């Protein structure tokens, strides 16, 4: 069924067709519509799930960790301050190996208060042990929720599907809502191996001495490494059933490209347009979009970037005291390669400042004149 959906409702439908069983959330701009629609679906019986209204995001995530520990499929959505407030529980969800799936609407942090898009909220949760998927349109938002359950439950890792505030959350697009039978074929019910079960009691989360703790962390890392393959497998299976193709990365006009623009989220879709316009002017430029950020597809990135002349990483985020965060990760991934391009890092669009295709063309034209990066940050669109 095709429907005109805002990004927020694409998340709700994603959770619905995935048959989420327990949903818990606290309202925050710009996430509210996600849970309003889910709540309505629960009340009408359209979605057979329990909706737990809580007093804070910390409690929302705690409730889902509890529910997931019993072995049911769980969902929540939040944004910025809400995600930061969940932080303690994000570590818990990953450590407890509860495959909670959530939507996070990328919004800039306070102070000063902002409701507009920026990636620092999700990127500052980089090391919590959550998988992170950055979507570029509303169809991908919906499809990524379904795939997130598939991968998360196969490895007992939580997953975050991320979309840009307002640019996607409140923008409507035509979205194909997959039929329930097809989704059921792709996504079987969740079976948890170790769960809270009165017939087979276990204790969870107890004090673990240095003799045992280390290995549990190793296992999370191993699961993350395995997740790289799982995302690709899930992408292939998804394509065979639904006809839409997704991978860890997306490339556009890279085969003959001398330079690549590397970005994520909606800036990457704007960059695609910029690539087309630059190609019309004869520029050999392509695009690499990072879709799955955790686990980080370093090997795939190396395979694509090692043969190009220049890489331009565009970040709508900043690691204060260092540089753009995607830039840091990509540079680190390339460091041990013998053949590697100079990598330029651009920070732009913070606090939701608009980044147009014209801006990206200017970024490209500026970088292409430079021999090598003289600093770790090229600022674009900064008004001083």
């Amino acid at each position, binding site marked *: 069924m095709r429907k005109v959906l805002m990004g927020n409702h694409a998340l709700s439908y994603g959770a619905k067709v995935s048959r989420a069983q327990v949903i818990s959330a606290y309202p925050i701009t710009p996430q509210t519509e996600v849970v309003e629609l889910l709540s309505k679906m629960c009340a009408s019986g359209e979605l057979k799930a329990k909706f737990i209204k809580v*007093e804070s995001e910390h409690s929302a995530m705690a409730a889902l960790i509890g529910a997931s520990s019993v072995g049911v499929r769980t969902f929540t959505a939040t944004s910025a301050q809400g995600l930061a407030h969940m932080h303690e529980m994000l570590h818990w969800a990953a450590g407890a190996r509860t495959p909670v799936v959530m939507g996070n609407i990328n919004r800039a942090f306070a102070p000063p208060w902002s409701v507009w898009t920026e990636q620092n909220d999700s990127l500052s949760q980089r090391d919590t042990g959550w998988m992170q998927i950055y979507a570029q349109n509303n169809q991908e938002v919906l499809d990524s929720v379904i795939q997130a359950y598939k991968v998360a439950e196969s490895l007992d890792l939580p997953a975050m599907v991320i979309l840009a505030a307002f640019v996607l959350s409140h923008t409507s697009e035509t979205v194909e809502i997959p039929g329930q039978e097809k989704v059921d074929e792709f996504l079987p019910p969740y079976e948890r191996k170790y769960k809270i079960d009165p017939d087979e009691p276990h204790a969870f989360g107890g004090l673990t001495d240095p003799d045992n703790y280390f290995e549990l962390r190793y296992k999370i890392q191993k699961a993350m490494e395995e997740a790289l393959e799982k995302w690709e497998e899930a992408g292939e299976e998804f394509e065979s059933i639904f006809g839409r193709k997704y991978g860890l990365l997306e490339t556009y006009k890279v085969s003959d490209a001398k330079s690549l623009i590397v970005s994520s989220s909606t800036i990457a879709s704007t960059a695609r347009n910029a690539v087309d316009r630059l190609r019309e002017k004869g520029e050999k430029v392509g695009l690499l979009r990072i879709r799955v950020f955790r686990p980080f597809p370093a090997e795939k990135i190396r395979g694509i970037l090692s043969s190009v002349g220049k890489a331009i990483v565009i970040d709508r985020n900043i690691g204060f005291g260092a540089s753009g965060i995607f830039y840091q990760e990509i540079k680190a991934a390339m460091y041990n390669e013998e053949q590697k391009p100079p990598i330029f890092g651009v920070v732009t669009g913070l606090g939701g400042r608009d980044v147009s295709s014209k801006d990206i063309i200017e970024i490209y034209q500026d970088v292409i004149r430079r021999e090598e990066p003289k600093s770790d940050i090229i600022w674009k669109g900064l008004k001083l």
Partner: protein
Amino acid sequence: MDAKTYDMGKIDIAWCPGCGNFSILKILKDALSELDIAPSELVMVCGIGQGAKAPHYFKANVFNGLHGRSLPPATAIKAVNQSLVVIAEGGDGDMYGEGGNHFLHAIRRNPDITHIVHNNMIYGLTKGQASPTSLEGFKTPVQPGGVILEPFNPLAVAISLGASFVSRAYSDDFEETKEIIKKAIKHKGYALVDLLHPCVTYNKLNDRKWFKENTYYLDDNYDPTDRNEAFKKAMEDEKLPLGVFYINKEKKPFEEQLPAYKKNKKPLYEREVDFEKMKVLIESKKS
């Protein structure tokens, strides 16, 4: 002092026409002007919500912090400079939901601050979900089957914890509410004003008519020092009493108990660091 002293001039106020928050803004300005409190002496501390926007429309010192977290910075602001008048202001979701734990501990700590809670029984900023004070059965887009939880009773909680000043007011009653707020500001210690007001856009149940029909004022003979009576009044839910419910004169303000103020009443920021004294202290710990 003229109430216009607190005006911000021509600014865009982001409340709906008819919102109870407009009355609260006016009442608060009148109360402060009658108490002759200069904007420079006043600190408004808020979090997030429609109610928490009120300090944005005030010419005063403003600290806009996190959702639910205005009481801890308000407590600290007063603790470092007792010459300031400190008001923590926000809504029912901000103060009783996300910030519920701070509400309990502010009462226990008893800082000399005024806590004004715009209570419209709904989340206005996120466009109409049930708040901790929404009535049972109240329907919203997130509670389409109606609220199933018992509403939070801030007055009963405050009185049970022995809060030093507990009151409830209603935004449309200008004179009465102004007097309650003046008493709360003058009170030495933590003072709660649970300020009922209509949300004309999202709360169609608790509208102006509902508040008129479902509230009444405590009579002149009412004794606010009687804790049991205050608790009984706070538990009334058929018609909500308005006025000063409880004053606990036994409870000492937090600042008075701080060692830093035992011998010297000067605010911390005005004091010089006594390095000699500090040196002696550090040396004494070395042995």
